[in-house]
């Protein structure tokens, strides 16, 4: 079964509060990290007989998997 992934990250210009906190923690422990962005990875498996995977995934993603006001989503595995 083919697995697709929807990779969701905060938009560049939007404040990533999680990324900021994690970066601060890592920096305080002296790790050489320049930047951190925290997002989500959603694993999607489609029904057996689905043909137009790209179209379907586009629709699913727009269905509310991510918030287009503040996030960007990329589909992987196509």
């Amino acid at each position, binding site marked *: 079964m083919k697995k697709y992934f929807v990779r969701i990250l905060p938009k560049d210009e939007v404040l990533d*509060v*999680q990324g900021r*906190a*994690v970066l601060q*923690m890592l920096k*305080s*422990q002296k790790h050489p990290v320049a930047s951190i962005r*925290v997002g989500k990875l959603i694993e999607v498996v489609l029904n057996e007989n689905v043909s137009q995977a790209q179209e379907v995934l586009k629709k699913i993603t727009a269905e509310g998997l991510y918030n287009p006001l503040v996030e960007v989503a990329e589909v992987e595995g196509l």
Partner: protein
Amino acid sequence: MKVGVVQFPGTNCDRDVFQWLVDQGHSPTYLWHQDRFDRGSFEACVIPGGFSFGDYLRSGALAARSSVMKSVSEMAKSGKPILGICNGFQILCEAGLLPGVLMQNQKGNFIDDWADLKNPLNNKKIRLPVAHGDGRYFASSDTVKKLWDQNQVNWCYERADFNGSVDEIAGVQCLSGNVKGLMPHPERAYQNWMGSTDGWQFWI
């Protein structure tokens, strides 16, 4: 008793815990997350509730890795009483001082409510307030079995499906018994007007 009260950026029940300890006759001192302390300086230690580091990544994940927790760990190993309340419980689990993990509540909502609790070891019943978004206790079935066999479960929710915790577990302790964690807040129920006094002399 001389009690250390740990403070992380984002901890918000520290002042409440401090007051609770003072009113019970103890001498609390705040312990800042970036500082180590000598494990002999205190007789006990509390990690209060709140949103340490905003609960970012996972609740308690960032706090568990801070300097002060190294000292707390040493204190735990020396057998002194350590209490983790709510976020404190989450931090103790993330730090490996207690087994299991606290995950998002079953229904996905923050719960503010009163909880009827039972201690399975002596059937004592108490009533304490809860306020948490990640209160669902989870551990592998092997771990859960060990916890029951080794008498490490010390509080359970009376109401079924309270927040989805396995076996309705609300609080556990380590094998040696000195490190305890629970999701409900004893420091919010120790005077009559608060609605319950079961938090009075609840721990030490």
